[in-house]
């Protein structure tokens, strides 16, 4: 798939999903894009195509993008069936045209999932992830002056593992790549990065229960252990976190149902 590093220009046929709005029917439209510098990024190629469309008085292709350096999680196209296109551990903005061969037909679709409705063309509404975060992806922290740097000891291994989970940029590629449109990798990353740290312990059970409940409510699918999610993840977050979340969930369910509760009454006047 990945071409030799070259400077000879290439031409491709771009087959893009065009959809004017959320309720409008969509369809694929082919655009010839000739004389492309192979070292331009995929999004720059879309910019070039959009320039040409604008000049011709046509509607440019709407696509989501922001930082263009793989850290914001905004860009989101599915290129030739793979979210974020060819390559491993990168976002769409980090795909270069040298990954394609001269004469290729490149199919570009939005991320497909019921909880990610299409807004326009390649742009989807991924606010379902925000709702899952709001359900429990936070900690209760002491406000005020900054705490002493080493006041809370954290084993290096735990800190590193928590950081691996925290690299999630919330792009939604896991959902898009999953054959079942499951959000388990995203939720697992968010549950684990706080659950691994001492600061996250107070809400640990409540967090996993609430976030999973919200994920289910929003209509995401269920994990069947295909591990497509972690392969498509631009941060290569491991599906080991899904196992960790399953374990956390089972423990939380047992504790919430069976562990003793205080019988003290009072307050809440």
């Amino acid at each position: 798939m990945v071409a030799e590093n070259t400077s000879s220009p290439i031409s491709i046929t771009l087959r893009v999903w065009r959809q004017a709005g959320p309720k409008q029917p969509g369809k694929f439209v082919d655009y010839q894009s000739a004389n492309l510098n192979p070292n331009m990024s995929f999004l720059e190629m879309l910019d070039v195509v959009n320039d040409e469309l604008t000049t011709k008085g046509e509607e440019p292709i709407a696509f989501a993008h922001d930082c263009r350096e793989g850290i914001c999680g905004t860009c989101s196209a599915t290129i030739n069936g793979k979210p974020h296109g060819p390559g491993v551990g990168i976002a769409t903005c980090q795909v270069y045209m040298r990954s394609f061969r001269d004469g290729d037909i490149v199919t570009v679709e939005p991320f497909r999932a019921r909880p990610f409705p299409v807004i326009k063309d390649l742009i989807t509404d991924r606010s379902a992830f925000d709702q899952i975060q709001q359900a429990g992806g936070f900690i209760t922290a002491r406000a005020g002056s900054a705490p002493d740097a080493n006041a809370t000891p954290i084993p290096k291994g735990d800190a590193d593992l928590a950081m691996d989970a925290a690299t999630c940029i919330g792009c939604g590629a896991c959902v898009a790549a999953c054959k079942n449109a499951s959000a388990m990798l995203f939720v697992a990353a968010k549950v684990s990065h706080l659950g691994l740290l001492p600061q996250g312990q107070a809400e640990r059970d409540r967090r996993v229960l609430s976030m999973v409940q919200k994920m289910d409510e929003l209509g995401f699918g269920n994990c069947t252990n295909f591990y497509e999610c972690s392969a498509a993840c631009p941060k290569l977050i491991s599906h080991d976190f899904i196992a960790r979340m399953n374990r956390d969930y089972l423990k939380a369910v047992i504790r919430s149902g069976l562990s003793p509760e205080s019988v003290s009454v009072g307050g809440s006047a």
Partner: protein
Amino acid sequence: MNFVGSLFRSSIGRKILMAITGLILIGFVIGHLVGNLQVFQDPDHINGYAQFLRQLGPLLWVARIVLLVCVVIHIWAATVLTLENKAARGPEPYAVKHTIRATLASRTMRLTGYVVLAFVLYHLAHFTWGAAQKDTFKDNLKHYTMQHEYRFAGFPVVNAGTEVDDVHSMVILGFQNAVVSGFYIVAVGLLSFHLLHGFDSMFQTLGVRSSRWSAGLRTVALAFCLVYFVGNLAIPGAVLLGKLQPRTASVAAAQR
């Protein structure tokens, strides 16, 4: 939230039910195979074993009900989860279908599951209910007289001289039908394939799998499935090749 309710209502809960019922069913198929491989020994063994299982009486029914409940929950959870998965993709499917690394076994779980279900029903009709291949069903074969006592886990459970069903002949006569044996071999092959993903998945769902030992787990799953398939293949294979012959006089009578 109620503990049992969470297992039945939530996505992860249903997956945990899939894993636990799958674990029980894997345990059953291992025991079932080990019991059946006694067909290669003297007819006293498998016939005594079958008689021993019958003698369990109510305990046998407890086991049967547990297995039936497991099968029902396993199929129910699979159905509910699959319908949700289909709905979750949304109104428009991908135009380009691309698989990065999902294994063939994992992507065919539903199809292999259908074949296994059809096989289990035929298998019960064949050897338990006597609805299929009636003329070689144990009720229609002459009783077998135990030559020696049968011991289970060191305890004598069936005495010598007891008149028992001739399961040994039933199995061999049943598998002499090449179509039945062929279906059986294909079905256990697909069951082994189903277990290849199921065995591995169970550890992930129950939250004990990690990439530090997942390669080893994968190897163990593959070895288990191969051994399980070869063990199951051995019985109809040996019958078809004529290596296993019915050995009692009752059979000669039945064949006439």
